[in-house]
């Protein structure tokens, strides 16, 4: 049984600053060389879909226009996997408990299985496929590779997306802090020590 009090492992410098203002962040991004014909547009006012039939959307995923036809109930995860062919984001539980489906929306890590695709218009979605610039690995990807932070690899994209955000949030001050702030990602193969080492290493280089 665990007795938890906040502050263990949390450092002052690790906390987000500022208040939420309720204004959607602009979604201007550079075009990635691999696929985009044109860069994604700035934030749009979403047209309210009202029917329970199919909705046509254009999402901004990894800096690219992604046209989708979804139902209101389609999760972002299913839209990415089934329609966009972006299978890097994984379905582990479909209920937000395992973190394998972690993506970034407007730079913040979320679980895509509990996110409706239709609510993502005008936001910038980043998946594991969007991390590597050109052919180079993102430093966190490289660290996972170097520290063997995986075995079967199924939780790995979610772990990496979570770790990238964690480092940006400033929550990599200690191993204990890393573990706490990676607690939304499960690894059944048990690569946790190597995952922590990879995150620690990448954070130190960041």
């Amino acid at each position, binding site marked *: 049984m665990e007795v938890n009090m906040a502050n263990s492992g949390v450092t002052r410098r690790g906390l987000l600053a500022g208040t939420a203002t309720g204004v959607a962040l602009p979604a201007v991004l550079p075009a990635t060389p691999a696929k985009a014909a044109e860069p994604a547009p700035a934030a749009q006012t979403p047209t309210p879909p009202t029917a329970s039939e199919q909705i046509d959307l254009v999402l901004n995923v990894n800096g690219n226009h992604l046209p989708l036809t979804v*139902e209101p*109930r*389609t999760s972002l995860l*299913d839209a990415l*996997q*089934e329609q966009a*062919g*972006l*299978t*890097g*984001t*994984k*379905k*582990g*539980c*479909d*209920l937000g*408990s*395992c973190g*394998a489906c972690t993506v970034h929306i407007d730079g913040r890590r979320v679980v895509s299985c509990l996110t409706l695709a239709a609510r993502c218009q005008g936001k910038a979605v980043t*998946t*594991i*496929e969007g*991390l*590597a610039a050109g052919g180079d*690995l993102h430093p966190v*990807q*490289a660290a*996972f*590779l*170097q520290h*063997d932070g*995986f*075995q*079967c*690899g*199924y*939780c*790995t*994209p979610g772990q*990496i997306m979570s770790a990238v955000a964690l480092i940006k949030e400033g929550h990599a001050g200690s191993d204990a802090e890393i573990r706490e702030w990676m607690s939304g990602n*499960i*690894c*059944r*193969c048990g690569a946790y020590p190597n995952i922590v080492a990879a995150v620690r290493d990448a954070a130190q280089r960041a």
Partner: protein
Amino acid sequence: MASIGAPLDRVDGRLKVTGTARYAAEFTVPGLVHAVLVQSTIAAGGIAGFDLAEAQGMPGVLTIITPDNAPKLPDKKDASQAVNAPLLQNNAILYNGQHVAVVVADTLDRALAAAARVRVHYHRAEQITSMDAVLGQAYVPKHFRNGERSPDSNRGDPAGAFDSGAVKLDATYITPIEHHNPMEPHATITRWEGDKLTVWTATQGISGAQKTLAGLFGIDPKQVRVVCPFVGGGFGCKGNTWPPATLAAMAAKIVQRPVKLVLTRAQMFTSNGYRPRTIQKLKFAADAQGKLVSMRHDGISQMSQPILGEFVEPVGLITEMLYACPNVAVTHRLVAVNAGLPTYMRAPGESSGNFALESAIDELAVAAKSDPLEFRLQNYAEQDPHENKPFASKLLRECYRQGAETFGWSRRTPEPRSMRNGRMLMGWGMATSTYPTNQRPAQARVRVAADGMVLVQSGTQDLGTGTYTVMSQVAADTLGVPVAHVRFELGDSTLPPAPVSGGSSTVPSVGPAVLAACQAVRAKIIDLARSDAQLVGTMFRPMHCGWRTARSSRPTAACRSAQCSRMPAGMRWKPRPERRLKTARSAIHGMRSVRSSRKCWWIRISAPSASVAGWRRSMPGWC
């Protein structure tokens, strides 16, 4: 430098960290539709009827398969699997979570929604969900260890020796149900083309899946292709071929479209087996000096209804062989309840049985007032007491010694509650663990290309176990090439067959096949080189790290294996025009020479005994 034993990033690592490794559900198959399983919510009884009106009327629903309309499958049991889940062949309900229907629709959301609206009417029978209630009905397994041995064993007179023992233990140990829950749920995409079946499925056993599916649908195994390059964890639950694959194939046949079926996380608790609960009674006795005189280990494990097959958690196997005790009896029994099918999970029997065994040894040591480590050393088995054979090797004593030294075992005080660390009471214990090495027949194929790249293939599996990397290392070191020049392919039943990845058997099985294939290829290349017109008549002199060709009649100084890209001392360059070896017509491609900067070429070929020396070309930059 050898790659085995040196640090190495997994060769498939880049694919995994970039999200480009493809798992079963992620293959693009045109025309795909989705299947969702409906499960029983009662544990015993039968299906009285279905109310499908609402579900069938929902958008996108293609078909709903139930026992009322499911195709009849062959009556004979699939003998290759210990247990087989019901496949909609009748209305009997044998456990909560049994599959009772399959809903197929054009999108996943529609299939899930329709499945939630399938109404099943049941008639209930008395359900038995607790082992404890029916321990008196325990029965003897008929197919223990595939029928290769009896579930029971006995040596000496355990009962008599127990009575005369000075120190006794009579205890019951219970291990719970444990679920595998790999991160990747079971997933299958199945596609029929005529009577040919292609299956992209999460499996630890490609060959087994091929056979099972072929048997179910009455086709030749060669008509079934199983593809599985990456498995997102298995731990035993993906060893058998479970309904996600079989019912998906059934659905695909009915709707005449490729079908994808992925288990929900909740279904991972019911639909692919689990480690069964065990109740283990151990009666041990030792003499006044602390020597074991009697060990009795009776294990009962939970099974579903016997009509579904037989799976035994073999908890007593280690007790038979670990300690030198002349009087040992082990029995395995099953109790049938209305619960889902058990299956292999992470050291089946070894882990659950070892817990009981080592706990009992500890407790007996305490009763004998003996240090637990000393007690084990005193009862150390120099040779296998069950088989009466010497161990091929046994370094357990050294393990004990090193462990005791590293952990400071000598600082341990035996009285409970006698050790502290600040405010915390400290407990300090140890246990022995052992696991058999299993080896099964396996095949591998090696191709060496004209550019020196090596392709190695075997129909084996990688579930995070590192098969890609390990086999690349074996091939690289056998051929004397860098790992980066080896490509290992697995996960396809069109590749040479290999056994299921279970029981830690992949490396001991596939490894030697890769090794042998690489050795054979190397021998062929040497033969090719020897038969080369230019080299006919040349002496191939064995050096300490290999043979070298030399035109001169005197062998030159021994080459230094670590400096492969430099000319060994004393060798003379012999200018000769650029040449090509004949390319073999057989599957093995010959090695073609490459023009070096000095318009010379030389071959160094490793002798079988050399572990380091390589087979190299004189290509600048190659090393």
